[in-house]
């Protein structure tokens, strides 16, 4: 198990997952917006 530097490792991993999630979020939000536009037109 992780014994030393725990806080650094966890923060690095959580930031990674956060940024990856942010990318997915942006892409999907863009998609939702465009689908909304498509429905209107």
């Amino acid at each position, binding site marked *: 198990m992780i014994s030393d530097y725990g806080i650094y490792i966890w923060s690095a991993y959580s930031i990674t997952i956060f940024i990856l999630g942010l990318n997915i979020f942006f*892409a999907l939000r863009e998609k939702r917006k465009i689908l909304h536009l498509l429905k209107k037109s």
Partner: protein
Amino acid sequence: MFAWLNKNFLSLRAFYINTTWLIPWIMTGFSLCFIYGMFTGLFIAPADYQQGDGFRIIYVHVPSAFAAMFIYLMMAICAMITLIWRVKITAICMSCSGPIGAWFTLLALITGSIWGKPMWGTWWIWDARLTSVLILLFIYLGFIALQSAIENSRTRDLATSIMTIVGIINLPIIHYSVIWWNTLHQGPTISKLSAPSIASSMLYPLLAMISAFILFYFLIVVIRMRNQILMREIKS
């Protein structure tokens, strides 16, 4: 041959149809690699005898730095194709890749500095590798700025292509000059970021994470390209 390619792969419509079934596959591949890499990287791989558990940050830092450079290479290839054959799909690919690349570069910088804190005792060090990644971030930001400044879509595609090509010519020069600069200024010669002769039990999770990041890039870029294709469809 070109007409055939155009009909089956390069036209926007064909791309949209072809990628519909591709997305779930990329997603599965990404999840498998990511979960395996995360799990073994965090819990299975043995601790480094010099850095202890601190080296585990390598499993997010190196893949993101690799992805950042890989994405720039992809953009440069797309830029070449756009300039030479005026293919639309590669231009869309390039414009969608820019922001993703910038995110990965930022991630590499953040994880790098988090790694640096326990290893070097400071958040930031003007080490050759970190500095050249920082410059890569600036280039990405310039790309995004140019992209958002030009309104006409065709001009934008071609102008950013040229900019990307200037970047790819310059990047190796920047990289080597930064390395030279680093030795000149006699900075701390700890190169802990490179892990020489890595044990295979440490290597497999790393490879898995690298492929996970690349697959993630493909996933996002395909989704965003499909968005752009729909957007252009709406506009016309």
